[in-house]
């Protein structure tokens, strides 16, 4: 049986309008979730009976990167743009899996400055639900 699974090495985050070029060290992807609504009635026994709500909540993505003072920084609250997380492309895949949609930067942390520590920045974005976000599996 072929070995399954892969690490995050080779993943990419791209920004369709701001075209930021960041030396990314970590991409943390939040969850896509939906609330469950209680529809239990007096006749219900044992467990709560629930149905899914109408709309899903979009994920927030956190990006850690090596901070370079000459690089353009993310603009918090800037115009919405297409933000794409492309998963590492495995051997045999024509195109890697992606998570893509329109989003805005919600936070940007400048690096702490101290002896013996590489300057590290962090930014976060949240998909705004206008287009996507959609996860598309890899194409083989």
């Amino acid at each position: 049986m072929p070995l399954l699974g892969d690490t995050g090495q080779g993943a990419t985050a791209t920004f369709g309008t701001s075209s930021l070029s960041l030396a990314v060290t970590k991409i943390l992807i939040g969850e896509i979730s939906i609330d469950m609504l209680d529809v239990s009635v007096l006749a219900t026994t044992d467990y709560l009976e629930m149905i899914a709500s109408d709309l899903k909540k979009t994920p927030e993505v956190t990006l850690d990167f090596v901070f370079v003072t000459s690089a353009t920084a993310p603009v918090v609250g800037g115009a919405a743009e297409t933000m794409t997380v492309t998963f590492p492309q495995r051997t045999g895949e024509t195109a890697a899996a992606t998570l893509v949609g329109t989003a805005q930067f919600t936070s940007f942390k400048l690096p702490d400055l101290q002896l013996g520590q590489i300057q590290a920045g962090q930014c976060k974005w949240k998909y705004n639900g206008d287009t996507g976000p959609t996860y598309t599996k890899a194409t083989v």
Partner: protein
Amino acid sequence: MELRIEEHVLLKQTDFGPVEKKLNQHKVFLKNTAGEWRHVGYVGTRAFLPLSGFPPELVASVSDACAKELGRKLESVSPPPSKREIEALASNE
């Protein structure tokens, strides 16, 4: 260089059925020396955005080819700093 550009769209489910929504970017595919098409990056509204690991030496030529294919100018975006550049920053060179 054999290049293929596809418009990047998503399907949005509506009460009237699925609707295609544009993302204002294109996917860029390149044929490698083994004859395989590989996804190498995107073209956003301003520039070619390479995927991790794409050779920095090829970014300019792919960007020019995309600009020609799409019929519009693309800015030159520097790739993320290399390990050597990061090491130089860390040692204050």
